[in-house]
């Protein structure tokens, strides 16, 4: 692969998804795009790049972009963000949304679905407290291919053993040969749809809780700031933003601050929340 091809593809990825592909990740390009070349019956990587350069074929451009996204995910990933949901976030919302009985949660880069299904399991465990409540989980991802897998809710033996307690496997899955199918009721709790974080976030409405974990790490600083500031506008004054273990808002956005004692959970800063700002003045 020559330098010009690398630069062309990395620019294309950046424009379409915000993903930053650094030179040291160049090896990923050929390994991930060769299957796309085969699917489109090109002779190889070079012919694929030439076709991408020459055509405005939206489907081809989507396939190239999706192939470069990372879809590593597992149930109860890092445990803590879900313990915090159960022990701190959900009790807070049960108390503070008791008049509307409505909660909206967004899993902003849901990959193959383990994150929203984990949330659905936790909500299901709290179903007695949530009787009569309207709880919506929106799960989005850039990749339509990975969303198809997420919607199906079918996982391998390996996938159900990474993070998922055995009691939940018994309770929320059915075995089908060497695959495990998630419960129909849990699937019904989640609205899956494709969504690009570079587009207008406001179109999705407002959310009490946003899980945006392990996605900002692939963006550059201006894109991170744009996404974070956009998310700040989608949250009520007591909303919660959860980022991945290697992600932070520090030095990127003034819209959020770390909630004291809650690693990885951010709330709105008074200046980004008009209601809190009014109260403070």
């Amino acid at each position: 692969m020559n330098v010009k091809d690398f630069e062309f593809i990395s620019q294309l990825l950046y424009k379409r998804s915000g993903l930053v592909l650094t030179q040291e990740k160049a090896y990923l390009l050929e390994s991930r795009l060769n299957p796309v070349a085969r699917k489109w019956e090109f002779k190889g990587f070079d012919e694929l790049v030439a076709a991408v350069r020459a055509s405005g074929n939206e489907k081809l451009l989507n396939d190239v972009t999706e192939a470069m996204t990372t879809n590593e995910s597992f149930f109860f990933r890092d445990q803590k963000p879900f313990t915090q949901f159960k022990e701190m976030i959900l009790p807070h919302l049960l108390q503070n949304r008791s008049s509307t009985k409505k909660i909206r949660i967004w899993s902003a880069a849901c990959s193959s679905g383990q994150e929203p299904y984990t949330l659905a399991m936790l909500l299901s465990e709290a179903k007695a407290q949530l009787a009569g409540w309207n709880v919506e989980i929106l799960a989005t991802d850039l990749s339509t291919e990975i969303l198809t897998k997420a919607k199906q809710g079918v996982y391998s033996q390996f996938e159900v053993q990474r993070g998922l307690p055995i009691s939940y496997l018994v309770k929320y899955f059915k075995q089908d040969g060497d695959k495990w199918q998630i419960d129909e009721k849990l699937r019904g709790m989640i609205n899956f749809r494709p969504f690009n974080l570079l587009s207008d976030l406001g179109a999705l409405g407002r959310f009490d809780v946003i899980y945006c974990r392990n996605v900002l790490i692939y963006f550059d600083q201006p894109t991170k700031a744009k996404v974070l500031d956009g998310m700040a506008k989608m949250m009520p004054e007591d909303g919660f933003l959860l980022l991945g273990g290697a992600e932070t808002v520090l030095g990127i956005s003034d819209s959020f601050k770390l909630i004291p004692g809650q690693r990885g959970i951010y709330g709105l800063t008074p200046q980004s929340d008009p209601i809190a700002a009014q109260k403070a003045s």
Partner: protein
Amino acid sequence: MKSCLVVDDSKVVRMVARKILEGLNFAIIEAEDGQQALEACQREMPDAVLLDWNMPVMSGLEFLVELRALPAVQQPIVVFCTTENDMAHIQQAIEAGANEYIMKPFDSDIIESKFSQVGLI
């Protein structure tokens, strides 16, 4: 340092499990079947047991039932690790007192994940 009793009739499986668990800072004791495992527990109760199902002399499930009946101040956390990978076996293991369940084949990620879930790591 926590201790883990690795119970499996396969020397190779015990060796692989030992290597993974020592990497997670566990002191390892080995047993080839349920009877040996029970005797090891009667001598000194470990913090954890990684337990195969099908073994000669005494199966993993028989061992677990006997273990849970022992009057111990601190019962160990038991993680099954077996080729029995169907729902009926999993339910049977939980009812007998297993804390977690690994379906073979396993790797270091799965062992670490399961041991972390039950608070051993």
